[in-house]
Structures are given as structure tokens and as C-alpha cells.
């Protein structure tokens, strides 16, 4: 057995930290119960035509899950957000990497990109419908744009933050510029990229839902808007709950991928809780 192996077999977690894990769990569940109670109290005092009763929301959820309605609408929204997300994300990563090799072009177009961040994207929906018709295209444009900006800005900042000495040494060691992109810059900018992604995921889902308010006859957005038109407050709440669940699942997936890609990073126990 080498010293390294011996070190790895030592007990790593003292009891105190395990206890803290338990306490945090208890606290989380407690907060959840408080939230549920507040919701129920709100529904009772405001009336069910404004705030749906949480238990009725749950019953409806079970019901549409049984009829297959839930799966159909969720699939439609998930599909469109995922495609739009992939497009926006790809553009947001590829562009800064391409610009890295063209510093003068970067300096020229950077102010324009930064200015275009300020354009209210939702305000463009009517134009997108006018240009691309009533189909998936305007939805994808909207989602793609909303995902693109946070990803672009964070990846751009990530590339700028790379330690110049690492780049110099990689060059001395014989790495070509494209290898440096893959082996050095990619890894160094990953934390930035993921913080951009965490902003983008809920954006993609909200953009899909808003687009569905306006275009099409399927999806969670359609379900919410349809429920509103029928004065079905419970239905609207169900739609919102599904949307939240969708974002949470996608975020969890993201965190999982992030952890796998950055296994090398020194881990902080307190942040691992």
C-alpha cells in the first residue's frame, strides 16, 4: 500500500458534519411545511377564485397525470425549451471561442453585443411571429436569444479570466492554439459557463411558456392560459407547479453535470451540504 492509498482509506467525515446534514434536512422540510400552510391560509382567506387550494391542485395534478394530459403538455414544453436552449447555448459558447482568435474583431463588435443585451426580447415576439409564422420557429428564436446572452457573457468573461501564464506555458510545451482552447481555456472557463447556464435554464422554460401563451395549442404555457380563460384557477396553479418542477429537474441535471466535469476542483465540505 502506498502512502496515497493509505490516506484515501482514512475515515473522512467526522460525526459533527453528519449531524449538521440531518439538521439542514429537518430545517428544509420544516420550511416546506410552513410554506404549504401559508399557501392554504392564503387560499382560505383570499378565496379560491384567486388562490387555488393546494390539496385541490394536488388532486388535479394526479388527475391529468392519469389522463396523459400532463405528460403531453410537459413533453411539448420540455422539447421546445431543450431545443432552444441547445441552440442558444451552442451559439453562446462557440462565438466567444471564435472571437478569442480575432482580438481586433472582438473589440469592434463587443460594444454592439453588449448594447443588444438591453433589447427586451419578449417585445420581439410579435415580430418573430410576423417573420417566421405560427410554428416552432418564433418560439425557438425567443428561447435561443434569452439563453444566448447569459451564456455568451459568462463564457466571454471566463475566457478573459484564464491565467495568461498557463497559456504561455502550454505554448512552450508545444500546444497549438486549438489544443489550448480545448485543454486549457475550456476547463478554466467551465465554472463561468455553468453559472451562465444556471441563469439560462429557468429563462428557457419561462420563454417557452410565454411563447406558448401566444402560439400553439399545446404545452404548459397553453395549459395555464387556457385555464385562465376558463376561470380555472386550480388549473393555472397546476401549470405553474409543473413549470417549477421542470426548472428544478433541469437545474438538478445541470448541477450533476457540473460536478462530474469539475471533479478535480478542491471540494469544500461546507458547500457540499
Amino acid at each position, binding site marked *: 500500500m502506498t502512502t*496515497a492509498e493509505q490516506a484515501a482509506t482514512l475515515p473522512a467525515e467526522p460525526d459533527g458534519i453528519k449531524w449538521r446534514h440531518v439538521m439542514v434536512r429537518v430545517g428544509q422540510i420544516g420550511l416546506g411545511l410552513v410554506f404549504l400552510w401559508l399557501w392554504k391560509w392564503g387560499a382560505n382567506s383570499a378565496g379560491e377564485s384567486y388562490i387555488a387550494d393546494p390539496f385541490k391542485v394536488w388532486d388535479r395534478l394526479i388527475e391529468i397525470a392519469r389522463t396523459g394530459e400532463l405528460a403531453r403538455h410537459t413533453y411539448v414544453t420540455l422539447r421546445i425549451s431543450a431545443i432552444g436552449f441547445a441552440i442558444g447555448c451552442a451559439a453562446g459558447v462557440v462565438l466567444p471561442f471564435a472571437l478569442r482568435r480575432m482580438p481586433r474583431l472582438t473589440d469592434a463588435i463587443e460594444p454592439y453585443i453588449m448594447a443588444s443585451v438591453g433589447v427586451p426580447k419578449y417585445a420581439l415576439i410579435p415580430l418573430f411571429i410576423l417573420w417566421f409564422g405560427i410554428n416552432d420557429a418564433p418560439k425557438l428564436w425567443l428561447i435561443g436569444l434569452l439563453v444566448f446572452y447569459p451564456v455568451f457573457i459568462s463564457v466571454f468573461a471566463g475566457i478573459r479570466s484564464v491565467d495568461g501564464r*498557463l497559456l*504561455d*506555458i502550454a505554448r*512552450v*510545451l*508545444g500546444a497549438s492554439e486549438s489544443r489550448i482552447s480545448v485543454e486549457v481555456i475550456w476547463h478554466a472557463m467551465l465554472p463561468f459557463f455553468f453559472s451562465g447556464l444556471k441563469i439560462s435554464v429557468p429563462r428557457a422554460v419561462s420563454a417557452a411558456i410565454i411563447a406558448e401563451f401566444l402560439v400553439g395549442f399545446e404545452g404548459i404555457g397553453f395549459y395555464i392560459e387556457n385555464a385562465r380563460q376558463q376561470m380555472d384557477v386550480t388549473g393555472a396553479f397546476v401549470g405553474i407547479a409543473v413549470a417549477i418542477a421542470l426548472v428544478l429537474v433541469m437545474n438538478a441535471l445541470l448541477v450533476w453535470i457540473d460536478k462530474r466535469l469539475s471533479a*478535480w476542483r478542491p471540494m469544500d465540505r461546507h458547500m457540499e451540504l
Partner: protein
Amino acid sequence: MAALLEVRNLSKRFASRAGREPSPWIIRDLSFSVADGEFLTIVGPSGGGKTTLLNMIAQIDTASGGEIVFQSKSAPLGDKTSLKPGLNCQIGYVTQEDNLLPWRTCLENVLFPLMAQGRLNDETRAHAQSLIRAVGLEGWEKHYPHELSGGMRKRTSLIRTLVYDPPVILMDEPFGAVDAQTRVQLQEDLLRLWNLGRKTIVFVTHDITEAIALADRTLVLTRQPSSVAGEHIITIPRPRDIRDILTHPEFVDLYRRIRAQVQ
């Protein structure tokens, strides 16, 4: 012996920041040459510009004046984009900081230059393994740099350069962060490797004993702005026993003369 590398009237000052007084000369009119296969050590005061000098020779930093001639070709030193870091892997550089890639394990860091140069095969892999064994990093191959000690990182960065066998190697205090025992061990290993391949080595150190023990010739630099304060041919015969070098009669004399020049 023919000069492989020649530094002529080299000068360097860094660009000054807006709102500060013009930055001082770090290196002024520095000239020396290195012969093919020579082991040159450089000692000088801290902050004297030794790292800056090696950066310019490795072509990762620009010069403000003078020239650096390598294999009778003058390097374009004015403009950062026309530099050729490492001159197509002909000049290896073990930097003062280890500069390991933090997301690569010890072994992956050592293999990095081989992979980057498209020379990764069973033979070079085995060579990398033997170097890891030689510097006592066996068992730590799968550890990430932040899980290694400072000295282990230093050794990793040292063999990351040795593994691809560049004809010239610049070393910036490579043994600064290791204990005295390991240090002597590494010095002996380095001498052995150098004897086998007869590379050209430019070795910067603070330690006068080390400078004498390893070198064919020792260059002493002045304070900033640095230039050559003195040059000493080390005639102690090789192979040398580093553990016994302190008792060598020539050593004592050299040590005294060099220390008088290092201010």
C-alpha cells in the same frame, strides 16, 4: 564550443501604467552566451530580473532592446504576437511557479507536452513513468495538483519538461521548495540526466552552493537594472559528488568570490 544561445545588450522595462512614473529598467545591457551542451547557472539578488530574463529567452515576453540569438537566428522580440514560445519545443522552461494545469492529475500533467506534440505512445509513456519514479512521485500519479505538496508540484513541473527532451532547458529555481535531502537527490538526478544527454541548461538559483555544484560556469547578476557582475568557470572535475562538494578546495574559493559579488 560554439555559442548556441547568445544574449546581446538585452534591455527590458515593463510598460508603465497610466498615472505612475515611468517604469524602471529591469535589465540593462545584459550580454552573455551559452555554449552547446553547457550547464550555466545564474545567481543574482531577488527581484533582479532573472525570471524576466528567462521569460524573454523562452519567448513568452518581449524585450525592450538588444537581441537574443538562438542557433545563429535572431528572435523577433518587439511584438508579443510574433513571439514563438519555446521555439517549436526547442527550449524547455521550468518556471518558478509550477504552472501545472489544475484539472489534470500529476501523470496527465507530465503527459501533456507529449500529447500536445503528438508524441504520446507506449515508449514515451514508459519514459514518463520512469521519470515519475526517479523523482519519487510514484503513487501520486492520480492526484490533482492541489492535492500535492509544493515540492511535489515542483517535481511534477520539472519532469513535465524533461519528458519531451528539449535540447535547451531553462530552469527557474526548480529545487527551491524541497527539503535538503530531496534537493541533493534531485541535483544528482539532474546531473546524471544531463551527463547522459548533454543538454544545454540555463539554471537560475539563489543558492550559491547549488550554482557551483551543478555548473560548468556561473554567471552573477547585479541588482536592478541587472547586468553581468561576474563570471566564474567552475573547474571542479566531473563526475562530481554533490554531497562532498563543500569540502572540495576549489569550492571554498569559488564560494567566497561569488558571494562577494552577490550584493
